[in-house]
């Protein structure tokens, strides 16, 4: 049962296409796992469509050349099925387990995983300024030292479960933490997450200060 969901505002930004790619991936993947939010999003997108088409002050325009040009293009015959055949989703194998990634991850065919103790990470996006987005796998029994974030940290749980000071999280949970929250996630059975943050993590507790380079490594 998914307990943590993106709020209405994030859903609206996503469905109007105005959310950065890194966060759009997280919302899209959450929707794939959450029928409840899917319904919400369908309602939002229908409203947005109405607003867009009702806009005032639309200048009349005549694009006859364009119209003729489009009509001269052959329509896609439904028989040529390969053209819109559903592409298969990517899967990853880590620590002896295979996971199928949500559709939003289809464009990442060659993920480069690197490991550090119980943690494996693959960078997903690095072309958005200051934003880091990764897939993170924590082996069973693994944990991440207590840390705080400079900016927000988003975690979408794709498989398995983990818990921290604030609760236990299940597959599909969309957890958005603001910069002032401190936590130390642990996982008993292991988990695969998608994480996005706008700044590298800060490790805080005594011992793990030594591990500070890990902050740059994980995220």
């Amino acid at each position, binding site marked *: 049962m998914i307990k943590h969901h993106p709020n209405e505002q994030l859903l609206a930004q996503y*469905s*109007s*296409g105005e959310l950065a*790619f890194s966060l*759009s*991936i997280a919302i*899209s993947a959450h929707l794939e796992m959450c029928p409840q939010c899917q319904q919400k999003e*369908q309602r939002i*997108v*229908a409203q*947005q*469509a*109405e607003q*867009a*088409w009702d*806009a005032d*002050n*639309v*200048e*009349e*325009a005549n*694009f006859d050349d*364009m*119209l003729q*040009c*489009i*009509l001269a*293009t*052959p*329509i*896609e*015959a*439904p*028989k040529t*099925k390969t053209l*819109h*055949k*559903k*592409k298969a989703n990517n899967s990853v194998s880590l620590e002896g387990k295979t996971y199928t990634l949500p*559709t*939003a*991850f*289809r*464009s990442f065919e060659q993920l480069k995983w690197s490991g550090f103790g119980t943690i494996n990470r693959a960078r997903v996006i690095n*072309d*958005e300024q200051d934003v880091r987005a990764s897939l993170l796998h924590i082996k069973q029994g693994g944990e991440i030292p207590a840390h705080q974030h400079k900016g927000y940290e988003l975690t979408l749980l794709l498989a398995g479960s983990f818990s921290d000071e604030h609760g236990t999280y299940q597959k599909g949970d969309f957890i958005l933490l603001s910069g002032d929250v401190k936590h130390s996630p642990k996982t008993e059975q292991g988990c695969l997450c998608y994480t996005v943050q706008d700044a590298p993590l800060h490790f805080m507790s005594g011992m793990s200060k030594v591990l500070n380079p890990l902050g740059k490594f994980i995220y």
Partner: protein
Amino acid sequence: MIILKHVTTDNRLNKLNTISENDENDSIQKALCDVANHQDKKAFEILFKHFSPKIRAFGLQRFRQEAQALELVQETMLLVWRKATLFNAEKGKATTWIYTIMRNHCFDMLRKKMTQKEDQVSDDLWPMLEDEEVIEEDHLLSRNLIAHINSLPKPQRDVVEALYIKELSQPEVASLLKIPLGTVKSRLRLALSKLKTTLEVDHD
């Protein structure tokens, strides 16, 4: 008295407006189905004349550039023309479908502007221009399902036979059986899930 009269007229006007809005939605829906079912050029012209100025306005808002706004018009309307057969009236309104096509292309254009990347990731975020049935069709066909088709109720059997034995396309089946394309899709879905269950039982 005069004031009262005005109010009545206004109310009537308001009513008229709502009615014409519904009519407009219906005629857009019908035009899109005609494009899907018969590649109807006149119907596409109606859609094109209705939406292209609105898409341009939307594009200008997002890109603040005429050239990109026009690219958005061209690409959105081209997709509407080429992919109309994938519109499913049961899943939502025609106006929403066209909006999402525009939104998707807009997302890819903005991303290209920011990162110089040409990949069309919007298809992965909002996988709407794909036929979900396709995989099931191929998968089921490979298991010699023809033997089971006769057990289906007649309306479903007709659709399945026209698609697989006569090898017609979905819009062709729609016009052959004189039913909407959405009904073809829903009957097919029902038939496939029934066949799937039958096959699974057989395997057990």
